């Protein structure tokens, strides 16, 4: 949660676009951690079936949130990548990438 909160503060307070983007990435990491936390309710072992019969399946972490958060990580990654490409284009207009410059235009 602290990660998420600091990410939010970062998005708010930082004046440069790249830093805002990275702050959103920080929030995303925090959300991933939250999901791993909720998956750990049923156990801490990675949810991979072993061949040996005495595998403690009762103590495996819940795989469903893991699957969900993998999707979220991939989506987050592609969004960040797209935004970075756009940042390069934006840097040609205002090389300092400060948000106040971009918002000064009507």
């Amino acid at each position, binding site marked *: 949660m602290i990660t998420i909160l600091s990410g939010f503060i970062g998005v708010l307070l930082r004046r440069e676009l790249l830093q805002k983007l990275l702050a959103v990435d920080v929030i995303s990491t925090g959300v991933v951690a939250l999901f791993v936390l909720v998956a750990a309710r049923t156990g801490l072992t990675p949810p991979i079936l072993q061949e040996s019969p005495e595998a403690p399946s009762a103590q495996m972490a819940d795989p469903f949130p893991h699957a969900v958060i993998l999707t979220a990580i991939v989506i987050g990654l592609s969004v960040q990548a797209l935004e970075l490409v*756009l940042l390069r*284009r934006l840097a040609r207009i205002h090389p300092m990438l400060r*948000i106040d410059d971009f918002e000064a235009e009507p």
Partner: protein
Amino acid sequence: MNALLPLLVGWLLLPLILAFLAALLPALGRWLVLVSCLASLAIALLLLQDPLPDPLPIFQSPRVALQLDVYATGFVLANGLITLAVLLQSWSSPRHKLTWVLMMVLHGAINSVVLAADAISIYVAIELVAISAFLLVIDPARPGTFWIAFRYLLISDLAMLIYLIGVQQAYRSSGSFALADYGTLPLAATALMAVGLMSKAGVFLTGFWLPLTHAQAPAEISALLSGLVVTAGAAPLGRLQLVSPGLREVLLGVGLASAVIGIAAALVQTQYKRLLAWSTVSQLGLVLLVPAGAGVLCLAHGIAKGALFLVAGRLDSLDLSRMRHGGFPPASAIPSAIAALSLTGFPLLLGYGAKGALAADLELPWSQVVELLSIGTVAVFAQLVPWPGEANAAATVPQVVGPESQRSAGPGPWLLVAALVMLPLWLSQPPSGSAFGKSALTLAAGLTLGWGCRALLRDWRPPDLERFDDLINGFGVTALVVGLALWGLRGGWL
């Protein structure tokens, strides 16, 4: 019923597969989009005849299902029609090479959002909508679009992260991701999910990214954005409301507030597309009021707003004072007028049936408030109509006369306007006798209000609430408001 499932899954996947094909064979692009749209229209008609109230399960455990009830039908119909209109409008001049691919991905993603019945499918589909919309907004010829596209995707990402936190809380308490299990959720879960979806739908403070984005995007894309992409946020929000009664009452207040804010902001605009975008904020607020009727409302709004934006794309000047004095040729003005009348609920047009459904499902006094808001909507569009005494002011405004003024509005708007007129006949929404009288009154009141605002508020500009920091703060404030309201409802002191 089981035979229907492969058909539906196939239809959902079709636009995405065709998009892939279009990327490989660009020459086929526009035809493939046509195929996608027609497929969606066919499915929508199928659903109209025979809606399935129970969710169609894809997996049993965990529960992943497709929900094809009456709720979804309006959205699918809107999706098919609006995408088709935008396709026709940009048939010969796509903005960049990937337009067709992106339109199909958007189309398929919106279909998925509307039909999904579990929180994670909604998340994935909304992100897909956001990414394809983002790519469509970027216009290589206009660097101004880069910044708003960046801002759009950033805000969308934030909104969906907030939504995910809510989903995580929901999973923690209910052990499932299916929306049907979300009847009693902890307060934080509902509030966070709702705030995330509200931002995508463009309502209340969280939606203030919408006006600038829709105004600066290329006109055909604005039509898609205002007509369809906002439904990607509105549809899941409606589904959430249907399972969670406390949320419904909170969103009643939020929706009304959004409607009023949208109208007020639209009244003071000087640029046509910004006016239309603020009107979208307002209308989406109304959509939140009655979840059961959200499909029809979004259909009516999407078609009308799409037509208005498509016409705006062919105009010479978007400055309102110029448009008032000759910049609005009749070929463009007529479809715009019909679309605007539909938005205000004029009988015989689709908007009438939609507003009627809205008013019928609300108790007094809320239904009266909605009817009063129609006056506000008329006032907004009255900004396009010069009042009789304004001819003197016209002398100071340079006349806009050029060969392009005589261009027609293009096939897209006419298709949508035809739909506005014909769909009520199909869906059998006969107007009552007093409807014309009430509508005439509304028009008169709205025109007066609009002209009055223009006269009184001639040079006043509202404070600029759309800066990036304000948007982020808007998230926080909305989350607080929604959270407190939900808490109050449960505690009984509201």
